[in-house]
């Protein structure tokens, strides 16, 4: 009996270790979703926005920068998505790996309707916590209302790609 208990505990330990590895390893190797890391963002207007406070919402985090042309291409699509899917519980956050002085004019130019941050080091750390080990932009993560990462996308998304992704998870708006 003691031997059986030892075997069972060993299996549980191995399973737990494998699971932890899956959650911490680079995302491209992981076939499963993982709980989103606990990250906080300080928005341009100085407010702290914790990801945990958005539990119950679909959250789309789009890491971007003003020096990244594919990132700028996505901005109008993100603004439209926030308009169209906000009623279905979508909250978009735009952490910029950039300086506030560079980001601020973009808010006006693209009429950005979701919270944006400007923190190079903090954005880079958060992006890597979400599994982007290359550090390249743009990088987009979709988190479900229970706080699990359901999509990660490195590289620009067209308006159609974004629409397809949101429809797949949130349904038609």
């Amino acid at each position, binding site marked *: 009996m003691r031997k*059986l208990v030892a*075997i*069972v505990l060993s*299996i*549980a330990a191995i*399973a*737990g270790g494998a*699971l932890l590895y*899956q*959650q911490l390893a*680079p*995302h*491209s190797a*992981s*076939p*499963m*979703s*993982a*709980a989103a890391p606990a990250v906080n963002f300080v928005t341009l207007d100085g407010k702290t926005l914790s990801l945990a406070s958005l539990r119950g919402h679909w959250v789309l985090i789009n890491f971007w*920068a003003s*020096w*990244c*042309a*594919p*990132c*700028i*291409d996505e901005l109008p699509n993100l603004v439209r998505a926030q308009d169209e899917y906000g009623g279905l519980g979508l909250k978009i956050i735009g952490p910029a*790996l950039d300086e506030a002085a560079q980001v601020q004019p973009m808010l006006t130019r693209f009429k950005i309707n979701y919270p944006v941050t400007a923190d*190079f080091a903090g954005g*880079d750390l958060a992006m890597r916590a979400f599994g*982007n*080990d*290359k*550090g*390249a*932009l*743009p990088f987009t993560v979709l988190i479900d209302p229970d706080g*699990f*990462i*359901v*999509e*990660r*996308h*490195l*590289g*620009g*998304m067209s308006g159609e*790609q974004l629409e397809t992704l949101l429809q797949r998870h949130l349904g038609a708006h």
Partner: protein
Amino acid sequence: MLGAALLVATLGASARPFERPLEGPSSPDELLPVAEAFSLLPIEREGDTLHLSWNIAPGYYLYRQRIRVEALAPSPLGLRAIRLPQGIAHVDEHFGAVQIYRGLLDADVPTTGAFDRPLRLRVTYQGCADAGVCYPPQTVVQTIGP
């Protein structure tokens, strides 16, 4: 049986088997680390000129306008403006008329004054991949001996 039940319970508690793999041509597995995409070789000195070279991997490019060289510490050696070759002209919807470099990039920085002690240089550059991603500005510090 009990072991299997424990295993299922452990998996069910904190993971979901439906995350989609990364999509698109810009799969992270295909992207190079930034240091390999834009490899800055050791800076060389020939007389009064510092010589900088980058190996830019195929499918990647550097922006001409985002290359900077600065002396880190006060030095009797003065740096003149960097001499970059003509790049590939490109009109970007967001950045206007820009020039980019692909392949091997050589640049010179003429110096003035006495080169009698080590010089610390900070080199900054930024580029992107054709796959539709950009890398953050890179800053490399190199020390050149007299």
